[in-house]
Each structure stands twice: as structure tokens, then as C-alpha cells.
């Protein structure tokens, strides 16, 4: 199967200068491992790779958004080598509040914090994301923009489309998060340790001449299809 990723033939491990990861202190690395293990244990997350395999190639994982734990748990359910290269995109207003939360987001799971209240035309989040990931890192994004209230998967915002358009070589992997909204619902701060399931679907790309609305609808259907 020929995919845009094959055509552009990106080197899988582009030799770069010392990345932010390798310079992180051992404390942060250990905290990262502990946090990932804790998040998996607490959320009882089982990762199902349905039509894709874990890989360190550059990817954008896009998922439905149900809980504050989403970014953390999707990140934690990736295998450790993949996790090292994957940065969750998270809301700045939530993750930069308080010293612990900021330390976790910035140092431990290396989140890319996006200011939802201050989006400018010339400084779009998509450009920021693309600049931050370079040619090695992957992203976890939530195209709905905010957590759904009803539990239904909402319409996708256009950021995913622009990501796909500007970097057609990146694999877009749909992810479905099940039951995490019951572990930590909107408006609660104490989690109930139920079991959740993270499903990874088949990679997709922006088709030639595909319209924005069509692509976003197709991406949304790909997430919903993983619900079984």
C-alpha cells in the first residue's frame, strides 16, 4: 500500500541536535515512567491496536475528548519508546494552573500547552505545533477542542485539517477513548478507578483535493468506528 508517508520518505529517526528529551533530568524521566504507570493503573486503561501498530514514526494521534485525563492516559498507553517522542497537546488554562500541574505538563510529560483564550491569526496553534514537533516528534490532539458534555463525539475543529495539509507526510491515527469520562467526569476532581479502553485505528491522510468539511467528517467517523 502506497501512502504519502512512503512517497516523501522521511527518515524515521532524523538525526537532530540534542533534543529536549535527552537533556531532561533523570528525576523527570523517572517521574514520567511513574506517572505513566500510575495513569494506566488508575484508569485501568487497556490499549487496543486495532488496525495499526505502535511505531516511532511521526504521527498525529487524534482522539475524542471526554475528560481531563484524556491526554495523560493516551500518552501513558503508548509503549515507552513511542511515548518518549509523543507530546500531548493540552489546554494552557488547565495545565499551567498550580506548580505541580505545570511541572507535570512541562517537564514530565512534555505537553504542548495551547492558550485557548488567546488564538491569533499570525500565531495559530497549528503553526506552533508544527514548529515544536520538528521532524521527529508526534502529537496527541483533541479536534473537538473541548470536552464533550453529553458523551457524544462533537464536530471536529479545522486544526486537524491544516495539520494534515501542511504536513501531508505525517500519519494521522484515530484514537477512541472509552469510559474515561466516568473515571473523571467534567467538574469532578477525584477519580473513580474504573476500567477504560483506548483504541488505535488505521492511519489516514488527507486525500488529494479533499474538502475540509469532508476530511473532518471522515476523521470523526474514523474515531467513532473504533467504538465498535
Amino acid at each position: 500500500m502506497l501512502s504519502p508517508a512512503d512517497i516523501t520518505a522521511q527518515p524515521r529517526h532524523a538525526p537532530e541536535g540534542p533534543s529536549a528529551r535527552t537533556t531532561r533530568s533523570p528525576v523527570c524521566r523517572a517521574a514520567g515512567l511513574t506517572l505513566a504507570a500510575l495513569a494506566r493503573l488508575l484508569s485501568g486503561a487497556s490499549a487496543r491496536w486495532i488496525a495499526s501498530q505502535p511505531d516511532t514514526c511521526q504521527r498525529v494521534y487524534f482522539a475524542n475528548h471526554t475528560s481531563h485525563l484524556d491526554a495523560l492516559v493516551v500518552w501513558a498507553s503508548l509503549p515507552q519508546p513511542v511515548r518518549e517522542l509523543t507530546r500531548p497537546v493540552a489546554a494552557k488554562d488547565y495545565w499551567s494552573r498550580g506548580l505541580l500541574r505545570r511541572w507535570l505538563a512541562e517537564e514530565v510529560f512534555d505537553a504542548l500547552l495551547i492558550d485557548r483564550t488567546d488564538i491569533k491569526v499570525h500565531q495559530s496553534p497549528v503553526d506552533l505545533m508544527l514548529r515544536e514537533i520538528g521532524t521527529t516528534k508526534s502529537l496527541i490532539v483533541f479536534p473537538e477542542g473541548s470536552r464533550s458534555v453529553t458523551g457524544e463525539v462533537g464536530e471536529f475543529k479545522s486544526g486537524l485539517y491544516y495539520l494534515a495539509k501542511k504536513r501531508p507526510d505525517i500519519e494521522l491515527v484515530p484514537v477512541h477513548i472509552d469510559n474515561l469520562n466516568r473515571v473523571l467526569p467534567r467538574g469532578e476532581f477525584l477519580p473513580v478507578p474504573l476500567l477504560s479502553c483506548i483504541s488505535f485505528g488505521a492511519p489516514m491522510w488527507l486525500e488529494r483535493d479533499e474538502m475540509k468539511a469532508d476530511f473532518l467528517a471522515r476523521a470523526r467517523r474514523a474515531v467513532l468506528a473504533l467504538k465498535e
Partner: protein
Amino acid sequence: MNDLHTVVLVTGVLGLLLVATAVGQFLARRPDRGLDPGAVRAFNQRLRGWWIMGALMGAAFWLGVTATVTLFGLVSFWALREFITLTPTRRGDHRALFWVFVLFTPVHYVLVAYNRYDVFSVFLPVYATLFVLARVAFTGDYTRFLERTAKIQAGLVVCVYCVSFAPALLQIPTAATAPGSGNFRLLFFLILLVQFADAMQHVWSRLIGRRLVAAEVSSDRSWEGLLGSATSTALLAAALWWAAPPYEPWQAALAGFVIALLGFAGGMTMAAIKRDRGVKDHGTLVVGHGGVLDRIDSLCFAAPVFYHLTLAVSGAATPVAGG
């Protein structure tokens, strides 16, 4: 003498598992025997689950009473996770569920570890029930109130309260054991009989099962399987009476019979819950064994009755050590 009994029992079970594993592996490598390959695979997966369970139990026995109670506590915790995950709850149940998981379940097992029968026998069925009712009422969400609170209570009773009677067996004082040393053979006896009854139920249902108990709930549990399993388990229990200190042979046979009946009832109950939710297994922790809840459904129902039978047989009014 006691140690000799334990050695015989453990060696016997280990030998049985080894033989069964050898047979299973042999059958898996010879697909031309006219046997259903699916059944052979199911048998082998079931065996793998038993090995895992056996290893866990062995480790807990070796480490002592507290470790065993802790192990069962973790099993309960995981089973309750599966139970509540499977049951739809509403936002209004969140805080009640939080305390059920982080407070009521651990505290109950601490009470079991300290052998406070007077407290732990009412802690969950009375006090946790009252708390759940009140806590859900306080949230202001009254939609299907009784239905929602009943689900949480059922989960607590089946997954936590009933299961905890298995490790509680360790602290029943009997003539054969010094107080505090742990009555491991009783627990071993119970688990062995429960597993045996479960396997026998499948065997008898497959061999002569014709009248299903409730086809809508379970497509393989038959009256013949129930009777066959209860009789075989009673016979095995009578043959192993020496392994369960206070029991006479006829009492052991009665216990085996009752354990098989209740194990069957537990299996039927879980099957009904799963049918209602439209799933086959509760989880994916052990390959081929569904979830933890699928493995302990028979134990949930058999443990409290075996506990109280043992109390009656040993003549102790309350199981408080030295009492």
C-alpha cells in the same frame, strides 16, 4: 501431621494440573483426533488461568494471613471495577462511587484482617448501604434512584463482601490449628471445590445435559450439569475430609454439595448480568478467562456459606480468636 496433610494436598493439585497441562498440550498438537479444536483451546486457556491463580495463592499462603487478605482485597477491588464499569452509572453517582472504592472496600478488608467479625459482618451490608443511599440523595439527582443505588450495593455485596469470607476462613479457630497461625487448608479446600464444581458442571452439561435451567441466560448450564456437579463435588469433598480440619466425612460431603449448588447460582447470576449488558466477559486481564469477575463468580456465592458452615461445624458461636 498437619504439614503432611498440606504437602499431600498441594502435591496432589500440582500433579493434577501438570497432567492436565500435558494432556492439553498433547491435544493441541494433534488436531486430527476428532475433537473440537475450540474446546481444546478453551481447556488450555482455562488451565493457564488456573496456573496463574495457583501461583498467586501459593505466594499468598507462603507470605501469611495478612498477605492473603491483601491479595483477596485486590481481587475484590478489581472485580468491583469490572462490575461498575459494566453497569451504567450517572454523574450523580460519582462521589458515592469514589468513597465506595477508596474507603469502604479497603476498610472492610482491614476489618477482615483484624478478624473483627462483629463489625465486618455489618459494615458493608448496613453502613455502606446507608451511605450510598444518602450520598446519592445529597447530589440532587433522583432519576431512577433506587435502581442506581441498588446497582452499587449489589456490586459491593457480590464483589467485596462475599469474596472477603474466603480469606476470613483463615481466622476461624479450630482444634487443628493454633490461633493466629492461619487455617490455610480450609481456604484451599474451598477454592479447590469451587473450581472442581465449575469444571464438573461443564463436563456433565456437555455429556448428558438436556434440560437447560434458563436458556435465555446461559446456553450450557443444565439441570443435569447442576446435579452431576453437586454429586461429584460432594464425593470429592468426602474423600478429602481430612484436609478440612473440623469436618467429618459426611459434613464435608454436605459442604461440597452446597458449594457446588451456590457456585452454580453465582455463575447463573453473573451470566444474567452479562446478558443484560450484552457482553460475554467482564474484562481482559487473563487470556481466555474473561475478567476477574468471571473467575470468581462461583466463589462469591460459595464463600459466605462455607464460612458459616465451618463456624457451625467447629462449634464456635463467633469466630473471634480465643473467644
